[in-house]
């Protein structure tokens, strides 16, 4: 069999998927209890929030953008909503306020990108700092960790409950993945996003309302960030706004890029995000079981990313088209 033909079959998604299977097999053979149902559930559960954020990032990246404000939106909107509840606001009103804040602030981001034409990298970087700074200064008045009030009602189940034996965060993530998949594949708006990411000028000439569509992408990702935040907060009974300072946003980009979504836009789908998320999940779970030090975990994680990118650039060399579009 011709080796180059094998190579052609290997895109980054398949490489990463193979890598995931290899790691999975290796861990199954070497680690006790790795294959137990309980561990597999906790494996998926531990990356559910990352996966949900990855879906938000996917929608933006497909339109040739990037959203570095996802984690800030998630942390501040949910922390604020929980603080409103502890200050006596009814749960539904508080949650609606949090969601509206997330949607509103991402609309501002979207307008900056779509109408003011600020490059997404800078617009969202600035907005991330703004959201965190404004939130900490004017919205979250106590400590930077907002603890979950006791009277949150059924919403707590989103983070802690089970349905048919499956933890709710996994089900929420799966539901979101399905919704985003259907949105991208079967709606006109989804097709527009691909078109814009592929060729913005052609889309505009073709009659697609490019600017509103760009703004919409950020609003959708802001809404997804709010859901991810609710899952985080109800799982650990607190929202730590300090997470904005962590490298979580890079982990989100990592699962998206790792899965094979092109940062140059127009290429990728929900499956890519799932594959990327699973690899990180398997890797982190295995290393936690092996009791690998945290700093070493980060090194291994980044080496895997580099490996995937190097293999991808060998089997899929850059052509004129990708060169012209340019990556970030």
């Amino acid at each position, binding site marked *: 069999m011709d080796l180059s033909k094998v190579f052609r079959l290997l895109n980054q998604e398949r490489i990463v998927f193979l890598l995931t299977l290899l790691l999975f097999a290796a861990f199954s053979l070497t680690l006790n209890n790795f294959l137990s149902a309980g*561990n597999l559930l906790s494996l998926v559960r531990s990356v559910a929030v990352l996966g949900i954020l990855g879906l938000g990032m996917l929608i933006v990246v497909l339109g040739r953008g990037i959203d570095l404000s996802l984690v800030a939106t998630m942390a501040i909107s949910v922390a604020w909503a929980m603080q409103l509840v502890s200050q006596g606001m009814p749960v539904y009103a508080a949650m609606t306020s949090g969601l509206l804040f997330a949607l509103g602030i991402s609309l501002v981001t979207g307008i900056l990108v779509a109408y003011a034409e600020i490059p997404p990298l800078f617009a969202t970087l600035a907005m991330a700092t703004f959201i965190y700074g404004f939130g900490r200064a004017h919205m979250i008045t106590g400590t930077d*960790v907002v603890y979950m009030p006791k009277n949150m009602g059924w919403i707590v189940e989103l983070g802690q409950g089970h349905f048919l034996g499956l933890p709710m965060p996994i089900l929420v993530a799966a539901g979101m993945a399905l919704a985003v998949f259907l949105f991208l594949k079967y709606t006109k708006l989804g097709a527009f996003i691909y078109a814009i990411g592929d060729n913005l000028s052609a889309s505009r000439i073709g009659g697609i309302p490019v600017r509103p569509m760009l703004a919409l992408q950020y609003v959708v990702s802001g809404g997804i960030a709010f859901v991810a935040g609710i899952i985080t907060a109800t799982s*650990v009974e607190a929202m*730590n706004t300090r*997470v904005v300072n962590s490298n979580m946003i890079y982990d989100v980009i990592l699962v998206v890029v790792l899965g094979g979504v092109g940062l140059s836009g127009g290429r990728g789908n929900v499956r890519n995000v799932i594959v990327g998320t699973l690899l990180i999940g398997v890797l982190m779970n295995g290393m936690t079981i092996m009791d690998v030090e*945290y700093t070493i975990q980060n090194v291994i994680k980044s080496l895997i990313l580099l490996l995937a990118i190097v293999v991808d650039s060998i089997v899929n060399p850059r052509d004129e088209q990708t060169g012209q579009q340019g990556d970030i």
Partner: protein
Amino acid sequence: MGKTGFMKLTATALAALAIGATAVNAADDLNDPYRGPALEALQGKSIAYLPISIGFDLAQAWGGVVKTESERYGMTFTSQDPNWNTDAMAQGMTALIAERPDVIVTQNPDMQSLARLMKQATKAGIVVVQLNMQGAVQTDAFVGPDFIAMGEQAANMMLEKCGAGTDTSHKVAIVQGVLTGGVSYYQVQGMMKVFNEHPEIEIVSSQAADWDASKARAITETALQQHPDMCGVIDVWDGQGIGTGAAIKQAGKQGEVFFITSGGGAQSMCNGLEDGTYSAVINYNAPGMGRDAWTAIMVALQNGQGAGAIKTQIYSPTRVMTKDDVQAGTCWDPEQYAKILR
């Protein structure tokens, strides 16, 4: 002069004498000769507060107490918030040295970052009080728990529940903060000192959760999956431990797994004890640390020896608490101190 005239004079003289005597007595009563110099040593002095972040409960309590007291004695109090950014903190410290406040109250992010700057500050005649974690240089005062001893204490508490004499698996997990941070590092050092002398204890997991409750939750969930017979878990900070406790609860092991953590005693700590998230905590009482810091400032400004002449380690008293110790008002409300600092 008639008889009445003489009597009048005598009466007046007696009255005057009595009034005069009272006045003299009053002066004796009210004039505390030590108060004046003390007030003078404090009056008009400036305190600059530079913790690693003003957004978390401990720093809010320390700063809140010091600010309230300093304003009582006519001192100025300014604060900066580097928001967990070590570089911003070092810049802030450099700027402060140029501004020359009389006192800098700071909190080291690690051993080295501020060491050189604190030396410079002392040389410039600024009193430096270090909170919670000591840098590689000793200044006028260090105020904070003896974290190594606290780690030993937590480990000894764990020995009682999971040690040789108990009918348990003797399996213990440790959830660290960040590996390089002294608060976490020294506690774990203290724990390991004890556990190394007790080979029956099996440390099945010792991972850093980066001060993040979500990571702590994921790590503990996996550790509990691997070792369903886990006996106990120690987390080095209650703010992160809320995630560790959530994992124990969600695994249905609340009450079975003994969970020890430590913190400054904010309301969230009492809530966690009450709902069973924490089995026991070591409380180092952050407002008490604020008081210790204020005491250190008063001592340094009044002793007249100059900055850095007298160096003291002020280790914070700690108190072990369980659910039974929680009453209304046992813990403090961070928002109250956050308001003072705002």
